[in-house]
């Protein structure tokens, strides 16, 4: 077995008296299509914020691509190869679809600002390459028709796709998708599932996604981690997790309280 791409050990986030994420253990092998599920308020998005460096963990360790990433700036973690999308879409609304994707390349830019201003050959070549790659990514995500539209004017589903496109431009090893199918119609959801699978199969991107659409998750993910009240209550293949009594209780709140198995 190769080493995990992302590894969380005893990851904990406390906000005052509330423990949003409680001693979460997670190990994500390279190339896996994994899901993080759980009822509302289980701490899924907080987990993403911890991974991506937006929140500093109260306790615990986080290793990504063989490096300790606790305390790094979100931009640094992104440059190491972890990209994310946001649950409440955060696009650059006034910028065009193309510019949104181009922004994703900026973190990898080698030319400094003076060579950008003076349009030195090195920068011109980089800019040209960014434009070409951006066109490819936009095509891949099926947004070519909309490339000059301001991102804020796009339909909800297209905005979700653009978030993925922008994240792809940062050249990620790991892609964190926070409810990518939320607000999509069934047809768009099917397209999204195909896209995510392509990203993994063709571009070797490891994917971890949060999603409430259970059919989408069960069809797409190879491994699931279930969170409830900030704790991992189950993990395993989708069909195993589906039958887990702890999971059923967490979702439906029915039956006798049982021992919560890790």
């Amino acid at each position, binding site marked *: 077995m190769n080493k995990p791409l992302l590894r969380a050990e005893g990851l904990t986030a406390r906000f005052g008296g509330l423990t949003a994420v409680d001693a979460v253990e997670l190990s994500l092998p390279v190339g896996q299509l994994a899901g993080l599920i759980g009822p509302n308020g289980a701490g899924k998005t907080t987990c993403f914020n911890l991974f991506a460096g937006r929140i500093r963990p109260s306790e615990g360790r986080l290793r990504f691509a063989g490096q300790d990433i606790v305390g790094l700036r*979100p931009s640094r973690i992104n440059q190491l190869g972890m990209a994310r999308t946001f649950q409440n879409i955060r696009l650059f609304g006034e910028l065009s679809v193309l510019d949104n994707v181009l922004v994703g390349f900026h973190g990898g830019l080698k*030319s400094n*600002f003076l060579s950008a201003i003076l349009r030195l050959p090195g920068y011109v*070549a980089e800019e040209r390459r960014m434009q070409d790659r951006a066109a*490819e990514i936009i095509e891949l995500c099926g947004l070519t028709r909309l490339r000059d539209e301001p991102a804020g004017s796009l339909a909800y589903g297209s905005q979700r796709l653009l978030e993925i496109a922008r*994240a792809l*431009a*940062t050249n990620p090893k790991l892609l964190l998708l926070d409810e990518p199918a939320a607000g999509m119609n069934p047809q768009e959801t099917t397209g999204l599932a195909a896209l995510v699978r392509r990203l993994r199969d063709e571009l070797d991107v490891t994917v971890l996604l949060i999603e409430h659409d259970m059919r989408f998750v069960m069809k797409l993910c190879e491994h699931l981690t279930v969170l409830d009240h900030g704790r991992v209550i189950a993990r395993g293949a989708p069909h195993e997790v589906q039958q887990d009594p702890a999971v059923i209780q967490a979702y439906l709140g029915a039956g006798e309280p049982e021992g919560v198995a890790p």
Partner: protein
Amino acid sequence: MRLQSLLKPGGLLQPGPLPPASQSRRRDTLLTIGACLFAALGLWLLENHASGYVVHLSCVGAIFATLAVSYNLINGVTGQFSLEPNAFVACGAYVTALLTLSPAEKEASFILEPLIWPLSAFSIPLLPALVIAGLLTAFMAFLMGFPVFRVRGDYLAIVTLGFGEVIRVVANNAQSVTNGPLGLKGIPHLTNLWWSWGLLAVCLFFIVRLVHSSYGRALMAIREDETAAEAMGINAFWHKMLAFTLSAFFEGVAGGLLAHLITTISPTLFTFFLTFNLLIIIVVGGLGSTTGAVLAAFLFTYGGEWLRVMEEPMRILGWDIPGIPGMRMVMFSLILVVMMIFMRRGLLGSHDFSWRWLAALLGRRARP
């Protein structure tokens, strides 16, 4: 498949052959050079045939346009609402003036306390003085950036406002350097059309090119959503710092030219009102629009003069109205209010001039 090379490590930005210069880019360069030559001809005509008053106004207009364009870089493009340009203009003005004033003139001016030693003994030409002033102002902005960019939004505005006041107070009290409230007099009148318009051209070259590069996109991304920009690998702190120091550099140099245009400077010139005027200019022009900043700066400079008509005695519908001093400021405020009601996003919104836009406009007109 090309897609597969897309996300491989190092696959994105490897060195490769230069792309051929596109036809439209060459056309745009030619048009820009042509426009510059045309502007130079205009300046030459102004210099030789216009009155001193018009020449002075044109210089003021160009200096304010430079200030507005640089201020817009941090406030409009990067979206960091800051209120300190008066500090940078003051810094540039004082530094250049102290460097170009002759030792004899300095000795005559500093009556209360003599000027400290190295500055009192020499003077240098305008160009190196402007460069030193710009670099010093940029350095000041750099140091200021560390505490200032720890906060955002309204807090940033208040912190920078505080810094602006600090500089004015320092200018008032550091008598052995700034001559305190007396200010500096007898600064050589070296600023002419070529200096002021030349600076505007250089400033536009740098800032327009920056905005239309990957760095400009990053700055706008920070304006749109800082959290998302960070998550996309953009170090927001250093990019704000870049915009801040670059805008401070040009504000400092413009301050130097302003000092050599009006030949007398004192701390009262660099109060919050200077910042306030610049803020009005960039908001009226359209936050984020460089073209709007230039347009509004000239409107602001010339408009104040055109409105003088308002203060003269008039005869309207048989009524004799005596000249009311200050009427033009009332009119000016009214115009601003009406503008903000009907053009909330300023003259140009966040749009900018480009040759492509002009070509498209003319093409549409030409079609039957």
